[in-house]
């Protein structure tokens, strides 16, 4: 594993809009790397810069140590899967796949053998002579993959490849993409606005916001330890609480019969309106008196009818159930405490055996361990607007993707923002 794809201080403007803003990034060989972010965050522009369709205003792109910034698209050893697949409608499946090899003037025998191998990989040997308009969306997707892979690119670029498929097909293609990545072992650079896709496929993810990388890490790091409110809200659901850091906790321990009092720097006390004092793990050494947003994932909260036994570092608050949504494998509760509407997820392992499931309007206790909360900066309205932008239309050009206007009808709201207030 070497670091072989590098973006060095890459920027790109469209008029006054900064699509990509001084991004530096390295991707390792063989890695499945995702660029994840809402519309207009610059992820597609970054991919197009690597493909050679856009010239960066600043910085350079290195592939295997070689500067490819000024190479035209047809001289780069990368291939792209387009959002609209962009298959050649006048060519058969076979000719689509063979296109790159034919252009490279490879011997006929070799072309035949390579195309046959690809057709086997995508399991479409019997459809080789069909035209693109005679095959299904999922099959088109697979042909697009084969057409790119047959050229043995050093990096395969995927631009929202599943956006045009329906849910069932998308889930199947996710598994197929994963298998193909394992099989061919080349680097995948995957652009998506869908956090589920990115989480389930990637070795590492770069979450982007307004042309910058907000956080880079493995899916687990990003989910479990979001570095900003934007990341916390964009990846999965979360509850935000507006609070102020109070004094650190005292650590009580009994040593040789004496009670010693020491300051525990790992945990801070938080003051949040309407709540009793809460504790939160403070790995970032946030100072006393600072204003923070406490973020807690819905599944980290435990809901119970009885007040839980007090334990060290266990936070307990009281509320009443406002809504219950039964989802089969889990139930989602909305619990009201003061100004907050808190989302809680409870997995069912023994639902039917629970004598009395918690119901609407019941008084409940919520508890969580101080380690499961994160103190982040303010979750701004701008973040909320970005997250609620609808995904790019299939086939839309990059320039228009950069317009950051909030639509009148802001699609499906990300549950994140609902919690606070």
């Amino acid at each position, binding site marked *: 594993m070497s670091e072989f794809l590098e973006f060095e201080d890459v920027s790109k403007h469209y008029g006054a809009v900064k699509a990509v803003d001084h991004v530096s990034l390295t991707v390792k060989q063989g890695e499945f790397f995702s660029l994840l972010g809402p519309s207009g965050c610059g992820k597609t522009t970054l991919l197009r810069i690597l493909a050679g*369709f856009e010239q960066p205003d600043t910085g350079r792109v290195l592939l295997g140590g070689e500067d490819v910034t000024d190479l035209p698209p*047809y001289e780069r050893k990368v291939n792209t899967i387009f*959002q*609209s697949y962009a298959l*050649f409608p006048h060519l058969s499946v076979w000719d689509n796949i063979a*296109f*790159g090899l034919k252009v490279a003037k490879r011997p006929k025998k070799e072309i035949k053998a390579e195309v046959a191998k690809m057709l086997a990989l995508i399991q479409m040997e019997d459809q080789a002579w069909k035209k693109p*308009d005679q095959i299904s969306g999922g099959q088109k997707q697979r042909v697009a993959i084969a057409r790119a892979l047959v*050229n043995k690119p050093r990096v395969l670029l995927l631009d929202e490849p599943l956006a045009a498929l329906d849910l069932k097909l998308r889930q199947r293609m996710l598994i197929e993409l994963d298998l193909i990545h394992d099989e061919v072992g080349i680097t995948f650079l995957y652009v998506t606005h869908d956090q589920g896709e990115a989480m389930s496929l990637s070795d590492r993810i770069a979450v982007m916001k307004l042309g910058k990388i907000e956080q880079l890490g493995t899916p687990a790091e990003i989910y479990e330890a979001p570095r900003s409110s934007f990341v916390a809200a964009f990846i999965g659901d979360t509850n935000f609480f507006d609070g102020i850091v109070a004094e650190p906790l005292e650590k009580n321990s009994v040593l040789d019969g004496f009670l010693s009092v020491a300051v525990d720097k790992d945990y801070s006390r938080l003051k949040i309106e309407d709540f009793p004092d809460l504790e939160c793990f403070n790995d970032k050494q946030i100072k006393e008196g600072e204003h923070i947003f406490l973020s807690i994932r819905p599944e980290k909260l435990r809901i119970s009818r009885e007040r839980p036994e007090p334990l060290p570092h266990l936070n307990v608050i009281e509320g009443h159930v406002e809504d219950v949504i039964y989802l089969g494998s889990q139930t989602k509760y909305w619990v009201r405490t003061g100004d907050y509407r808190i989302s809680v997820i409870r997995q069912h392992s023994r639902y039917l055996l629970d004598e009395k499931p918690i119901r609407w309007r019941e008084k409940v206790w919520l508890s969580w361990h101080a380690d499961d909360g994160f103190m982040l900066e303010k979750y701004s309205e701008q973040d909320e607007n970005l997250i609620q932008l609808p995904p790019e239309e299939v086939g839309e050009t990059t320039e228009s993707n950069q317009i950051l206007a909030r639509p009148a009808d802001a699609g499906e709201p990300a549950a994140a923002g609902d919690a606070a207030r």
Partner: protein
Amino acid sequence: MKPSRLPLIVTWAVIAFFYVPIAILVVNSFNSSRFGGSWESTSLKWYIRLMNEPSIWHALTNTLIIATTATLASMVLGTSAAFALHRFAGSKLQKLHYSVIYLPLVLPEILMGLSLLLFFVQLKVQLGLATIAVAHVTFCLSYVAMTVLARLQDFDFAIIEAAQDLGAGWWTTVWKVLLPMLAPGILAGGLLAFTLSIDDFVISFFVAGPGSTTLPIKIYSMIKYGAPPLINALSTILLAITFLCVAASQYLSNRDRKAA
């Protein structure tokens, strides 16, 4: 309530108004009688006589030479124009360009014919086949440009990027992807241009010179000297060619739209 019969009646009236005269002409071309009024017997007499008329053959050759030249030229120019119109759509210059291309479709032919004649005379160009062909390009080009532009409007340009991404340089992309994909559109426009050129009368009449008689001009002069049955036969042939070209053009644009 019983649905009104009126729409049906109107429809048939319109169809009759449009096509009965043509039908009469076609039927009469197979009538061996010298006069359209009475039916003698079915025969190909007039067609055979047409075959033996050297001046008809001469006019036909002229027409085909002009139509082919004008069609090919307008396919090249019209496609280029469509590309420019699409690529730089929205710019002020292209809006002007669009009007310039669109104008010949609505301009009175007599005006175009007259102005072209004045233009050629002014330049002291010898009137003949060349001037007719150039005149035809001026309006044929618009039809090709409009047809190709319509195709370009639902063209996914990611396909061009895909070709380049797969290693194709600019020329390879044009030859292997762009032109094959647009070919049906260009061909449909070309066929339309061909039809229009074949049966254009007004403009050709103005810019024709000695020895450059085209079929429509020939028909006109034959009417003046009075040979109706022969004209019927000739018109039927012209009609058949036009019909075939338009049908082919329609087929090409429809088939491709479905594929897209």
